[in-house]
């Protein structure tokens, strides 16, 4: 689409820009443009789109970064810097001018990051701009661009893209790398908004995918996606996490008035669409669920369609070669959800990692649950037998011990309880739930000290952890001693001189 406008233009990097990057045709154009206007407004994104679309190389990003840095360093945008070809240079200049207009105040270089990420976002933004923005002086407001038919769309896209996460960004975002070419591949300022990356990546993902036909580039216009009233946020950028997440930050400064709408929609649609699309990397057909079985090949419609307001839909993309009716799509979504949950379960159930496949994993899970239930049953039987004879329950100690065990992550299937781990935390945990080891240790010592001098059998209540005893002390004497000793794990309390008949001094060190 419009991207071709810029993409195909070869712009030699401005001489003053110490850009050392390969210069794919499109990227160079971008770079120049980016470089020229350090203060590129956020509005530039729409224009950036053009560039990006064509530049899909990764290097662009690095180039872009360097360009960005140089761009930052050279605050004075000068269109004259472009030494590109006549037409190309003009275009570039125009862009720069526009950028300058928009982003005068913002220090961020919208364009710059875009360059690198052009590939990613190009598709997104490229389409809206049907024609190169007219040359504008720097002061021209962004609204001027609205004249472009696709500009509004793109602008919205950009703004959406950036507005959400970029809003927080201030002008200080742009790192001032005077003369330094940052090839980190990431705009440092971007890093402040990780959300942007998330935003960007899905959008970039779709854009960058070379397989995405140009027609598809307007990605994920609302028309394309099947809409399901589900949380759109599900569509995180699972699919191609674009390394070029950084470019999105540049959008922060983009004007939001028109962008917001587009971007918002875009983001949603992209995310959800991308999510589904990722697995289908086959240039899947965008599918509009609510439209029935059509639009298999309706990719190009979005290009010029004005972005629809973002909806809370899950945009499902039909897989290539699969049915596209709403039922199968819904089922597909459902299956994916189930798949996600199963992945979570996989982490929970031990031994599931080695198993692959839903069926086997389900088997494992079922077996595990059954074994757990059997264990519980067995333990309860044991408890009932024990309960008859012994009644000394040290509730607090038990609780703390259990808490410690559970918090220390011991698994049920591990043999035995590791009370050693409790020793550090036990006392402390009872009173406060912070696992401050140092304080735990300290607390541990003090109770022990008080424990020793007292006859142990009677001094337990002094211990802070045993403050909740409600039963008779005698009952607790025996038990708590054992418990304390076992819990503490220090042989200190191991004093047989108490009159309790604690048989098992469970001192587990």
């Amino acid at each position, binding site marked *: 689409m419009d991207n071709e406008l810029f993409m195909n233009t070869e712009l030699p990097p401005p001489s003053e820009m110490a850009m050392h990057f390969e210069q794919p045709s499109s990227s160079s154009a971008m770079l120049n443009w980016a470089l020229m206007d350090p203060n590129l407004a956020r509005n530039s994104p729409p224009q950036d789109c053009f560039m990006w679309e064509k530049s899909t190389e990764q290097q662009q990003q690095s180039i872009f970064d360097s360009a960005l840095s140089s761009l930052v360093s050279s605050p004075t945008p000068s269109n004259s810097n472009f030494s590109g070809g006549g037409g190309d240079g003009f275009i570039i200049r125009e862009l720069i001018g526009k950028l300058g207009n928009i982003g005068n105040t913002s220090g961020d270089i919208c364009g710059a990051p875009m360059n690198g990420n052009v590939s990613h976002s190009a598709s997104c933004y490229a389409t809206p701009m049907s024609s190169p923005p007219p040359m504008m002086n720097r002061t021209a407001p962004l609204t001027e661009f609205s004249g472009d038919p696709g500009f509004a769309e793109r602008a919205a896209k950009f703004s959406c893209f950036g507005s959400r996460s970029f809003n927080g960004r201030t002008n200080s975002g742009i790192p001032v790398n005077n003369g330094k070419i940052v090839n980190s591949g990431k705009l440092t300022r971007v890093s402040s908004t990780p959300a942007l990356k998330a935003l960007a990546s899905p959008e970039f993902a779709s854009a960058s995918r070379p397989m995405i036909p140009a027609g598809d580039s307007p990605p994920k216009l609302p028309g394309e996606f099947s809409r399901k009233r589900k949380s759109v946020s599900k569509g995180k950028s699972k699919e191609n996490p674009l390394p070029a997440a950084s470019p999105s930050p540049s959008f922060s400064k983009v004007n939001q008035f028109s962008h917001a709408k587009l971007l918002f929609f875009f983001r949603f649609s992209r995310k959800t669409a991308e999510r589904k699309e990722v697995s289908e990397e086959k240039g899947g057909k965008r599918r509009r669920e609510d439209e029935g079985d059509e639009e298999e090949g309706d990719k190009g419609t979005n290009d010029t369609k004005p972005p629809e307001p973002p909806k809370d839909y899950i945009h499902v993309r039909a897989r290539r070669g699969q049915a596209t009716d709403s039922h199968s799509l819904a089922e597909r979504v459902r299956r994916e959800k189930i798949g996600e949950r199963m992945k979570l379960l996989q982490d929970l159930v031990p031994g599931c990692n080695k198993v692959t496949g839903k069926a086997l994993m389900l088997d494992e899970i079922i077996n595990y649950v059954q074994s757990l239930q*059997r264990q519980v049953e067995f*333990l309860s039987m044991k408890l009932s037998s024990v*309960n008859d004879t012994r009644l000394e*329950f*040290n509730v607090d100690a038990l*609780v703390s011990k259990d*808490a410690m065990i559970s918090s220390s992550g011991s*698994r*049920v299937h591990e043999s035995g309880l590791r009370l050693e781990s409790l020793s550090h935390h036990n006392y402390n945990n009872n009173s406060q739930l912070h696992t401050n080891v140092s304080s735990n240790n300290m607390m541990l010592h003090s109770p022990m000290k008080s424990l020793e001098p007292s006859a142990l059998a009677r001094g337990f209540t002094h211990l802070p952890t045993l403050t909740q005893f409600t039963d008779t002390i005698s009952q607790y004497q025996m038990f708590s001693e054992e418990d304390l000793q076992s819990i503490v794990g220090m042989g200190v309390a191991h004093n047989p001189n108490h009159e309790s008949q604690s048989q098992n001094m469970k001192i587990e060190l």
Partner: protein
Amino acid sequence: MERQIINKKKRVFSVEPNKIPPSEVFTRKYTRLLVPALKKLNMNKNSSQANQLTVKHEVDMALALSAQEFAWSRFLLQKLSSSNNPTTTTSSSSNGIRIQKRSGKEGGDEDGEIEEKLRELQKLLPGGEEMNVEEMLGEIGNYIKCLELQTIALKSIVEDTT
């Protein structure tokens, strides 16, 4: 200054005082519920005939009460209150045969097998059959976790008393 820093650090440390790991919360609740119940049981009943069942009942009740934020606990409570016989988790042990590959169940229909297993899983979870599959899968996760914690708690209780 340093002390301030240290204090500050300490303070910061406890700035989120309520950040109790949920597993701890559960275990605490569980033990706090179960142990007194067991004690009461012990005191009230001297015969151990019905003890097993009652203990199991208490065990399950404690589980359900400790995990009330989950859907399955509601169902568990219902089961417990409706029938005094603990037909809760233990009953599933009767089905607790390892899932064999059911040949002839669904033939080569992989999806069918998977659905079969999902249904089986649903049976294991209290109230699982009333949920849809996705929901059930989510609930199974925390049910497993609570079961694990329960086992730990029971083990420690048993160990403490033996």
